[in-house]
């Protein structure tokens, strides 16, 4: 045996190892890469034409043509954030690899950091081409939002990661029977996120729920920029603070369900 094989791990090398594991899969299949941009592209085309139609009918959309398209694109940032994380987790379940992973020095927080990083990569790979296509097809650039776009992006990603981590914990605990939640759970938030309409059109009790979630702040902030060319830092700060809280809650849920799974012996038995 060579002395070279002595272990010298660090949290960063373990996180990058996990990212590498998923990157190998992603880069190995062009279909998987196309799939990342497929739904955002289909939705972009649909909302683009709807925006063109509505801009001729209503002064609101005519004034701010990109408001629906931006809503759709930013909503997809949230969906891709959650889904990108859940898919990385499900890959481990499908391949029955969790036993090897958690018998290694990889800690749960490093595992979470790895799948969060992959979620970010999947979102960028899927969304950037779609934003470019939006310019090509409809002459609209979401980058016209300026630097608040970066804040909106990371806020929605963080919230998506929080939701994704909680769902991953649930799938680990309940098995593949709960897989459907990984694909659909985030959509329950769509009606109270204010993606396509202002929060104040909701009934009061739903408004209370909406303002307890980060997307309401992001989409209201986005509308303020487009419709009134007004940057509202209080909305950005609220969105950011809530996203950090939800990410922490999501990780705690994951850790709690992970520890229950360790007690029940599910780490080496879960899979398809």
């Amino acid at each position: 045996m060579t002395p070279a094989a002595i272990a010298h791990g660090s949290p960063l090398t373990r996180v990058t190892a996990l990212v590498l594991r998923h990157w190998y899969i992603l880069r190995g299949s062009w279909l998987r890469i196309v799939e990342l941009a497929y739904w955002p592209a289909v939705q972009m085309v649909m909302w683009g034409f709807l925006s063109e139609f509505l801009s001729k009918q209503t002064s609101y959309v005519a004034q701010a043509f990109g408001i629906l398209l931006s809503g759709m694109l930013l909503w997809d940032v949230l969906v891709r954030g959650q889904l990108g994380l859940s898919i990385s987790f499900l890959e481990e379940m499908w391949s029955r690899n969790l036993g090897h992973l958690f018998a290694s020095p990889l800690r749960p927080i490093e595992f979470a950091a790895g799948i969060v990083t992959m979620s970010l990569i999947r979102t960028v790979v899927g969304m950037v081409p779609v934003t470019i296509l939006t310019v090509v097809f409809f002459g609209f650039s979401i980058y016209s939002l300026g630097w608040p776009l970066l804040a909106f992006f990371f806020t929605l990603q963080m919230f998506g990661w929080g939701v994704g981590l909680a769902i991953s914990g649930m799938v680990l605990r309940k098995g593949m029977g709960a897989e459907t939640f990984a694909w659909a759970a985030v959509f329950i938030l769509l009606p109270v996120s204010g993606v396509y309409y202002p929060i104040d059109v909701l009934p009061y009790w739903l408004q209370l729920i909406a303002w307890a979630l980060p997307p309401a702040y992001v989409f209201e902030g986005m509308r303020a920029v487009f419709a009134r060319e007004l940057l509202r830092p209080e909305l950005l700060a609220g969105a950011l603070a809530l996203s950090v809280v939800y990410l922490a809650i999501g990780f705690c849920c994951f850790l709690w369900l992970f520890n229950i799974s360790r007690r029940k012996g599910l780490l080496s038995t879960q899979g398809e």
Partner: protein
Amino acid sequence: MYAVIDVHHLRKEYDKIVAVDDLSFVVPGGAVLGLLGGNGAGKTTTISMLLGLLVPTSGQIRILGEDMLRHRFRVLPRMNLSSPYVDLPHRLTARQNLVVYGRLYGVRDLARRIDELAAQLDLAEHLDRPFGHLSSGQKTRVTLAKALVNTPAVLLLDEPTASLDPDTADWVRTLLKDYQRQTGATILLASHNMPEVERLCDDVILMQTGKVFDRGSPDELIARFGRDSMEEVFLDMARGRARNIEELRKVETVR
């Protein structure tokens, strides 16, 4: 001698089912201990608890001097596992799997280590094929390469030669014996393969329904049971023929 694996009164219950009951044993450094028992005897449950994949209901586990229930991450870089019950990602090539696990274990000069393992396990021509496309014997060898990638001081092997033909299985046993001799690693082996146990193990724990049925070297057990091989010893235990022997010879159930 220094106890590398030290297990005290280990118990695991799932609701009302007791999978492991009051299991205690010590494995000195450089020894190979076999866990032998039928299906459901508690071997895999025991290995899972040693690795921290499963939390015991009660009891203590110390490996390399560390309390595994509290400080397992101090020890896990120096341990590894091979098990047919846990898979590797099928879409990754054998090499990619070894790169990922080599990095997880923080192995330096990883490319060289992978080449070394590929040569030892006759995997060189299969390294760049997807794991899922390999035969079951080739998969077992890749899993074994993953188990050796960090040159572990404590190696846990759950049926390491399952799915291998007799020739390859014998060759893998030689490799494991050589690895143990060269590195002084401590090995815990769960197996149904009696010639494997006789050849590799210094000491054997016979397990039945989660409890220690008997313990000793293969020669001691064969002599105690009055049999010619470990296979006959195993069949005596599995079919309940050892009850009289147990009474007559006052077999120790726990050491």
